[in-house]
């Protein structure tokens, strides 16, 4: 009896142990074995660092990829020799010249990339080989940028993630890692101050200070995977991506042929490349650091045209400023200035258009726009003067009314005194 009970107990225990072992095994299979992670985490700081630094927001990790997706090998094998054997497809750490093709195994394959997004481009590798970086790498130069130089290694984020090194606002700093390195840039005859110059320009201020992600970063002008400096004959093509009207006017102007002949880099000749300052009227005319006087001298036709254009734009600007001041005075007195504001908006628009039309270098066209603006500014001034005159009329009316009311009050007071004195 006792023996049977002991056998039953042993059977029960065995069944329980089996169940525990099975459930543990099942749990292990569900969780997925990853010997890369397990071993590297135990293999000291240097080898554990790639695993520890892997952010779960990483574009690859968040889609379920582990180390073997890039580095090959077999994460299900417990034995290191087997897991990291060539027989199991282990690739190891790629050398710099291998990196583009390494990433390109997936990123240049539309069949693979389509699984993740139908719109994701797959021409990065092809473009890369056309870039300055790609040319240099191909010729055996390994200190040029490859994929990981810009995108990072183990924590790679999509470009629309602010943590990404290629998020628009981070792009200038990312490029500056290499392009701000004087020693490295010196090897290629490049200046290391592009970032500083860019930061001081209108584009840099808009992107880095105002955090306007629509403002151009390095890659918007130079390209990203196919990065290359635009040649002097194609600068306008780069700038016209955004500055359409200015570029078209320049292309149709007498300056286009003259700049080509003198091998002047189109827009850059006046506006510079990285340190693009906000232009103002001092850039027109023949005096000043950026003015037309840099190329034109007294006696040539352009000199006279530059002077005339400056006078026209100056006249409009001064007229507009005066009108703004006058209308402001009226507004501060509480008199409605809606129509005057409309006229002022028209004058401002004409001033902006005039500043654009100067790219035609055509006095008549600038004059047409400037005169239209001057007429609207004059209309606003007229309305402002009428408003001020109206206010004077109101004050005079108030004065008369106050005198009349005061006399009435005095009369009533005298009347009260009269009846109460009786």
């Amino acid at each position, binding site marked *: 009896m006792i023996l049977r009970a002991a056998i039953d107990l042993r059977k029960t225990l065995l069944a329980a142990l089996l169940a525990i072992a099975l459930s543990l095994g099942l749990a292990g299979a569900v969780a997925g074995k990853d010997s890369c992670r397990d071993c590297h985490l135990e293999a000291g700081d240097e080898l554990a660092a790639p695993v520890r630094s892997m952010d779960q927001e990483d574009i690859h990790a968040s889609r379920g990829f582990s180390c073997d997706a890039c580095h090959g090998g077999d994460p299900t094998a417990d034995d290191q020799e087997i897991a990291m054997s060539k027989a199991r497809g282990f690739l190891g750490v790629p050398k710099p010249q291998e990196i583009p093709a390494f990433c390109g195994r997936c990123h240049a394959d539309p069949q693979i990339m389509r699984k993740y997004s139908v719109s994701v481009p797959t021409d990065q590798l092809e473009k890369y080989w056309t870039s300055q970086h790609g040319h240099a790498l191909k010729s055996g130069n390994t200190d040029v940028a490859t994929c990981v130089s810009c995108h990072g290694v183990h924590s790679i984020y999509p470009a629309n993630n602010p943590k990404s090194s290629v998020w628009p606002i981070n792009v200038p700093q990312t490029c500056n890692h290499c392009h701000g390195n004087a020693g490295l840039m010196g090897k290629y005859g490049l200046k290391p101050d592009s970032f500083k110059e860019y930061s001081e320009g209108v584009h840099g201020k808009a992107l880095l200070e105002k955090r306007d992600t629509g403002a151009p970063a390095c890659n918007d002008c130079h390209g990203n995977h196919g990065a290359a400096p635009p040649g002097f004959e194609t600068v306008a093509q780069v700038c016209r991506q955004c500055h359409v009207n200015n570029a078209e006017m320049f292309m149709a102007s007498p300056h286009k042929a003259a700049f080509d002949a003198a091998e002047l880099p189109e827009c850059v000749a006046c506006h510079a490349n990285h340190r693009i300052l906000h232009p103002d009227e001092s850039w027109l005319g023949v005096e000043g650091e950026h003015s037309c006087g840099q190329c034109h001298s007294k006696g040539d036709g352009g000199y006279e045209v530059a002077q005339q254009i400056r006078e026209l734009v100056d006249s409009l600007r001064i007229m507009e400023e005066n009108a703004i001041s006058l209308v402001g005075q009226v507004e501060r007195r509480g008199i409605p200035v809606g129509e005057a504001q409309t006229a002022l908006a028209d004058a401002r628009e004409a001033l902006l258009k005039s500043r654009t039309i100067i790219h035609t270098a055509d006095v008549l066209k600038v004059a047409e726009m400037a005169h239209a603006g001057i007429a609207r500014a004059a209309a606003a001034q007229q309305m402002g003067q009428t408003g001020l005159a109206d206010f004077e009329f109101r004050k005079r009316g108030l004065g008369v009314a106050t005198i009349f009311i005061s006399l009435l009050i005095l009369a009533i007071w005298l009347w009260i005194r009269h009846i*109460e004195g009786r």
Partner: protein
Amino acid sequence: MANPESLLTRLYGWLNERFGIDAAVAFGKKKVVPVHRESVWYYFGGVTLFLFIIQVFTGILLLLYYRPGADSSFESLQFILTQVQFGWLIRSVHSWSANLMVLAAFIHMFSNFFTQSYRRPRELTWVTGMALLLLSLGFGFSGYLLPWNELAFFATKVGTDIVGAVPIVGNPLLIFLRGGEDVTGATLSRFFGFHVAVLPMVFTLVVGLHVLFVQVQGMSEPIAHQALAADKKRTMPFFPNFVLRDAMLWLVALNILAILSVFFPWDLGEKADLFAPAPAGIRPEWYFVFMFQTLKFIPGHVLFMEGELLGILGFGVAGLIWILVPFLDRRGQRNQRNPLFQLWGWIIVLFIVVMTIVGYIL
């Protein structure tokens, strides 16, 4: 040619024969106003009435050009301000006198509270006066929306939202006030109706009663003055002495309105855009700011109640108690000063002033 004086005398006689004007004139001549160191407060009732008359007069003139509607209100006001002769003056006087009228009504109310003028037999004068103050606030709230500008639109939205938070009747009342779920052109139409038809009709009736009560019962005397012996009391005839002083103050008020309208014309602002986000600094008219600010300070939940609801109920109960003051002040009914009520009054004044200032600073 007939003598004009005899014509007037004949006309007077004709009317007197039919309406007994002699009795009214005799009443006016016999009526006296007590003279004491607090007499100055008597004039604020008259000033409030004068400003109401200005409101009616300028309101009628504005009606000649104002066109209610989401597409026409703002535009018609622009037209009044820029194209209509003296339109700017009429509009500014209307807006300024509305604000000064509420201010004068508040001063009138508090002066009567602190002098305990509400005590027997003038309980109903106080109640009708409170009704007039509430109607004035209704005038202000409904008139604020009529220009259909950005600030008014959002202030009305917030104001009617507060009404909607009242239990049981809140939501139906909100729908009734707005003419739908949201503040739209339908809200503007009905606010216009309240502002130019319903409220003036009710206000005129109640103000008639209020003035009638004052005329029948005479001016209330402060408790200390009432206790004096008859030979130590000073009085002045209501007509013409008091009426002439009233007229002087009315003229001063008129001149102040003119000065404010010339140097600080009421701003029209930007047209309301139903789809625009609410601008920063939305605030109701100044006389609602203390309530608005208090509601902002109350936490979202207080014990088992929503904070906003608690605030609304609090103001509702406080308002009701305030209206019933003549019946609650037992000492006042016995012609005795009531220090507790005086203290309560000063706390309320302080609360209103502090919360209004805080509302403008924060």
